[in-house]
């Protein structure tokens, strides 16, 4: 091949291919997600398809998410429970295409945790379980034009806006209950990294930094949960401009636990955006500053920057086992910056 087209032309083609790689790779991701969505839609019957599809600008459906069980806050779309095995496979393939591998793994563990809740005799099994997660599609799946994929149920609400090579995961709720359980003899902690990386960052702070970062008051739950789209609050705690390089790196890694749920090229773009204003980002901690081995942080913490709000909020009487987290970009809920709404 090389001999037939000539070395110079081959090198030129290789160079062009290299230069084009990021865009084409991103386009292939967008195409792959759109194809998976089309395959999912094709697997549904007409009634199911009507339930799944919404207008891209359907504000009610966009905001129809919650951390609460689906029996309390009904979701739009159709649940895994309503699907045949092939339809489930197509649905999960679509989700897998839209998420990174670690993101999908996190989501699966959260769903497995809900199955644990369902298995408890003391709970109403109709409220919980890995089948009670809903898919909806807003707009027409496309490799170029914007559309949205929503996936969620108890303790999970992923709002993924896809616009060509870009993907936006805000707002999303990522929680877990139980946040520690065993599966086939192994301990599972769906939000282990969110806990452990935050604790590592806290541990890295010196006394003066801790005084700034640690808030003197209790924070019972997330502040900017469901119903708070586009809103922001004044930041508090320790400003990143007061952190050293290692601490900044720890913070970036921690942020990546949420930003990295979406597929890799979208996550990379989001991290670039977050890093650009990292110096104006804040880290605040409220609650216990100790962590038992193999357990979860029982303190609330918040990371807040010009385009970022992350809240981690352990709940009530069982803070190691019941965790709420919220991931937002108040300037870009449902990808409105991408779609110029």
């Amino acid at each position, binding site marked *: 091949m090389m001999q037939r087209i000539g070395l110079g032309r081959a090198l030129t083609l290789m160079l062009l291919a290299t230069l084009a790689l990021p865009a084409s790779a991103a386009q292939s991701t967008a195409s792959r997600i759109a194809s998976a969505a089309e395959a999912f839609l094709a697997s549904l019957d007409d009634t199911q398809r009507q339930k799944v599809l919404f207008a891209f600008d359907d504000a009610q459906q966009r905001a129809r998410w919650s951390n609460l069980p689906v029996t309390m806050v009904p979701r739009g779309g159709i649940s895994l429970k309503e699907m045949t095995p092939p339809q489930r496979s197509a649905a999960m393939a679509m989700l897998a295409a839209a998420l990174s591998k670690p993101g999908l793994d996190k989501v699966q563990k959260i769903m497995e945790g809900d199955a644990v809740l369902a298995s408890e005799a003391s709970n109403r099994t109709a409220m919980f379980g890995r089948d009670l997660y809903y898919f909806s599609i807003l707009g027409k799946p496309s490799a170029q034009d914007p559309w949205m994929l929503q996936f969620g149920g108890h303790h999970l609400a992923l709002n993924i806006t896809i616009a060509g090579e870009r993907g936006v995961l805000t707002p999303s709720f990522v929680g877990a209950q139980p946040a520690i*359980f065993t599966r086939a003899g192994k301990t599972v902690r769906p939000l282990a990294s969110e806990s452990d990386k935050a604790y590592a960052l806290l541990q890295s702070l010196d006394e003066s930094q801790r005084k700034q970062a640690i808030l003197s*008051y209790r924070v019972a739950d997330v*502040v900017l949960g469901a119903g708070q789209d586009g809103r922001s609050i004044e930041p508090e705690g320790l400003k990143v401009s007061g952190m050293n390089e290692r601490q900044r790196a720890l913070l970036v890694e921690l942020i990546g636990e949420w930003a990295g749920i979406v597929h890799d090229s979208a996550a990379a773009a989001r991290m670039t955006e977050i890093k650009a204003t990292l110096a104006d980002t804040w880290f605040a901690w409220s609650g216990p500053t100790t962590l038992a081995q193999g357990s979860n942080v029982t303190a609330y913490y918040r990371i807040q920057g010009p385009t970022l709000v992350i809240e981690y909020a352990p709940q009530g009487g069982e803070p190691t086992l019941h965790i709420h987290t919220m991931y937002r970009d108040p300037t870009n809920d449902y990808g409105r910056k991408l779609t110029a709404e």
Partner: protein
Amino acid sequence: MMQRVLPAALSLLLIAQPAAFAHAIDEYVQRTVVSLDAGQMHIAMRLVPGVEVLDDLLRRIDADADGVLSATEQRVYAQRVLGDIALQIDGQPVEPVLVDLDFPSIERMREGLGEIRLAFNASVRRGGKGHEFVLENHHEARVSAYLANVSVAPGSAIHVTAQTRNRDQSSYRVAYTTE
């Protein structure tokens, strides 16, 4: 594919104590966000009674105990909340004015979903460098978890310079400047 994504046979055993379903059922979570704008303060409250404290609360809201929160009962309750709030701006007591209220049905509240939304306005002084407001919320103090925050629109002439709270956030002090 399905087997890879959602393994059919998982041995799921909970360690530690069984996790009861709990979304702050024993607390009355009161989220307050104070929005500062030129000449105006907007106080938005979202009140979510946990199901374990709801009956006690309903006895005070649903005065005729008919299972429905009438417009009058809603307004009376909103005024009661207002009466449990103390606001000072630049050292002077200020009476916020109720401008909006929204109550869910009692059924929704019994499901742990009821979010009572109240909105109040108050006037703030324009200009001058240093300002401060103190918002105290003592409504249902025995069972409440308070969250108090301030919001300023991007590009606003108002700049928050300090926020201090007591341990349970029932007392919230914000210092700010205006250009």
